[in-house]
Every structure is written in C-alpha cells, then in structure tokens.
C-alpha cells in the first residue's frame, strides 16, 4: 500500500508515493539521489544520517518517510547557498575531518548546535555532538571548526 507524501527537501517540493516502511534516509539517498547523507551504523547511534527536519537535527535512519510528510528537510546538499555554509567553510579551514564519512551528519549536527546555542563552550560542543561518532577520532579539529564557525556566524 503506497502512501502519498509531500515534503520540501532543500527548498524544492517533493511529492512521492512511498511504502510506509521506507526510511527517510532511504528516501533521500535512493529515491532523491541525495547521497551526501550517509548510513553508518543503521541503529540510531552514529549520527552519520543526521539531517535537519523542520530545523531540528534528527537521525534519518530512524524516521519513516511518512513521518516527514509535510515537513521541511535540509541535507548537507542544501546547506551551501552559492558559497559554503560557514560551518562547511570552518570544517574545510580547520581540517575537521579525516576520512569524511561522518562529516555530512557532523556538519548538520553542528549547525543545529549553534542554532540553539550560538556561543557554546568547548564542553558544550563536545556534549552537543555526543550523537555523532567519528571513527577516525578527529574530534579535536571538529571542535575547533565549530568554534571557528561560531565566531564567523556571530560576526
């Protein structure tokens, strides 16, 4: 049984008929070709599938596409607007990545973190990112990137 859903993905309207069991991560990657969003652990722990759902960072491997009906979704592909989002630029400048697999979810979580706490302490950054795992353990530079982005975004 297909269910009709409509949502806005990176500013574009999307209408789809989907199986109820389709996960939002699979809708994004397989139906919409937005493969920036990664699926890592597939068990709601690693955070590499993190996207913004109505402005909040959520793990898209643990959300059904039908639950996102009527919502706005932002993936890593939707962050840049002609130029890199300040968080993307800060990751670039501070080498906030090693292999890069966790990076899309990590950047989305960092954007959400600064949205709710524009000037976090180092401790708040580390705790704020506990839902994102970097298997390369590149956390130091990720924290530096968030601090740099906070400075840029607070102008």
């Amino acid at each position, binding site marked *: 049984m297909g269910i009709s859903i409509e949502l806005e993905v990176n500013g574009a309207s999307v209408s789809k008929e989907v199986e109820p069991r389709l*996960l939002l991560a699979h809708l994004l990657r397989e139906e919409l070709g937005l493969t920036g969003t990664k699926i890592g652990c597939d*068990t709601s722990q690693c955070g590499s599938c993190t996207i913004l759902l109505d402005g909040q*960072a959520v*793990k898209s491997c*643990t959300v059904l596409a039908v639950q996102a009906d009527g919502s706005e979704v932002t993936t890593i592909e939707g962050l840049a607007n002609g130029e890199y989002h300040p968080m993307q630029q800060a990751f670039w400048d501070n080498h906030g990545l090693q292999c890069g697999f966790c990076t899309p979810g990590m950047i989305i*979580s960092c954007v959400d973190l600064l949205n709710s706490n524009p000037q976090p302490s180092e401790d708040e950054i580390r705790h704020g990112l506990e839902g994102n795992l970097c298997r390369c353990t590149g956390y130091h530079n990720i924290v530096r990137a968030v601090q740099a982005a906070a400075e840029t975004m607070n102008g």
Partner: protein
Amino acid sequence: MYPSKFDYHRPSSVQEAVQILADNPDAKVLAGGHSLIPVMKLRLAAPAALVDIGRIDALQSISRSNGSLRIGACVTYNEIANSADVQEAAPLLAEAAGQIGDRQVRYRGTIGGNLSHADPASDLPAAALALGATLHVAGSGGSRSVSASDFFVDLMMTALQADEILTEVEIPAAGAGTGSAYVKFEHPASGYALCGAAAVVTRDAGGSCTGASLCFNGVSATAVSAAAAASGLVGSDLSDGAIDSALSGMSIPDATGDMFASAGYRQELARALGAQALRTARDRA
C-alpha cells in the same frame, strides 16, 4: 536495514487512534519511534500496523493547573528538558529528560513512548515513580488513570491494554522545601543507565526531612522504588551520615546481572548513586 511491511495509520484524534487499535490487534503505537523503529529494523518486532499518534494535537502540550503539571504523551525529551514549566514544577523530570540519548534522540523521543516502552534502563520511569506521577490512559472502553507505581508491570510490560494509549502524564507540582536530583552511571557505548537514581526530598523550615522518595532505573526488570530506605530518612536531618545509614541495608529485589554488570555491582551502584542523588536533592531543597 528496513522493517517488515506494515499498514500505516495516522489518526487525528485519540478516539480515532484507540478505535484503530481495537480493530487491529497486531497494531503498535508509533510516537517518536526511537525505540520502536530500531527494533522493527532489527526484525525483533514486526507489527502488522502502526498507528502514528505523532500528529494528534491533544497530545502535544505542557500545561499547569491546580498544582499539577500535565504533559501530553507526544511531548519530546527536548521540550521537557527546556520547558520553564517543567523546570519549575518538576525539575527532576527536566533533568532526567536532558540526559537521555543525544541531541538528535531528544528531538524525537517522547515521554509517552518512553513510559509505554518501559525499558528498565531508560531514564524517565524512575523519575515518574519518584514524582508520584499519574498516567492518564485512553482506550476503546473509555479513559482511566494509573499511578506510576502500578504502571510498570515487568520487563517492557506496562498496565496498558492492547487498545489503550497513554495520553497524558500528570505530576504534582513541587512544593516549597522540595529538592530533587537524577544521577546515572551510563553504559559508555549505549548511554543507557546501568543504574539511574531519582531522588526527591522535602525539608521543613528547621531542615528536618518531611518526605523522601528514591527510585532506580536499570537495576531490575522495572523501575523500582526503594521505599523502605526513603522512609528511613523521614524525620532525619538529611546529613550525609543519615543518608548513608538509610542506604546501608538497602537491597533492590531481583537485581539484574548481565554481560555489562553483575547484580551485585548494580546493587553497589544503586547505593552509591542513591546517596549522591539524595545529597544533591537535599542541597537543592
């Protein structure tokens, strides 16, 4: 991984939701989905239908009236942790909710889903017990109220019938002289509580304890109240010595031993974290 096939229902009222449940005995209720969807992906659960209550307006709000705090079943951990009403009327619940999982999980997980799932290692059941919460439930036969102490029946089993939905959690607002604390020792990978201690104490103007409750997550198959230890504190000055003495003989019945921690270690954690939670609650009272 993806779940096995199911029918999807998205009712717009509680009444409609319970009717769908009554008509579909193999249906499960979907709220935030952060416990249910993972077990469905692992095929540990394969319900024939999901009833998504996430869009029912009546389940989304936090309100205060007549000395009570009322929280709709679909209010998220993030909303609870950051709500000024909850922080003031039931700070224990806000503190516990803020320690669940991670940011992403707290945006999706709900109080109703949490309590109905009744995972003993989760953080809210002990807080609900310690706060003397009343759980309002709706079913096809009508509505009823269940006290938190009667709600948790066994491992991941509650007093909810198959056609019932937890709709609202009601908590008596904290009075003057009341302090509370939630402290947990979490599994380093999962973040679940190997033991979580929820304490509430009330002191009179002279500093003497007039009421105490101490409840635990993670130690046994359900959240439990250490009522005997807590009642031993009433009348005391809540000094460190009084707390240690009240906890010295405490033993949680049927403590769980598993690959993460032995039953004896969990008992020891309960004594240590119980004391820590009580001391912090005292200092806040």
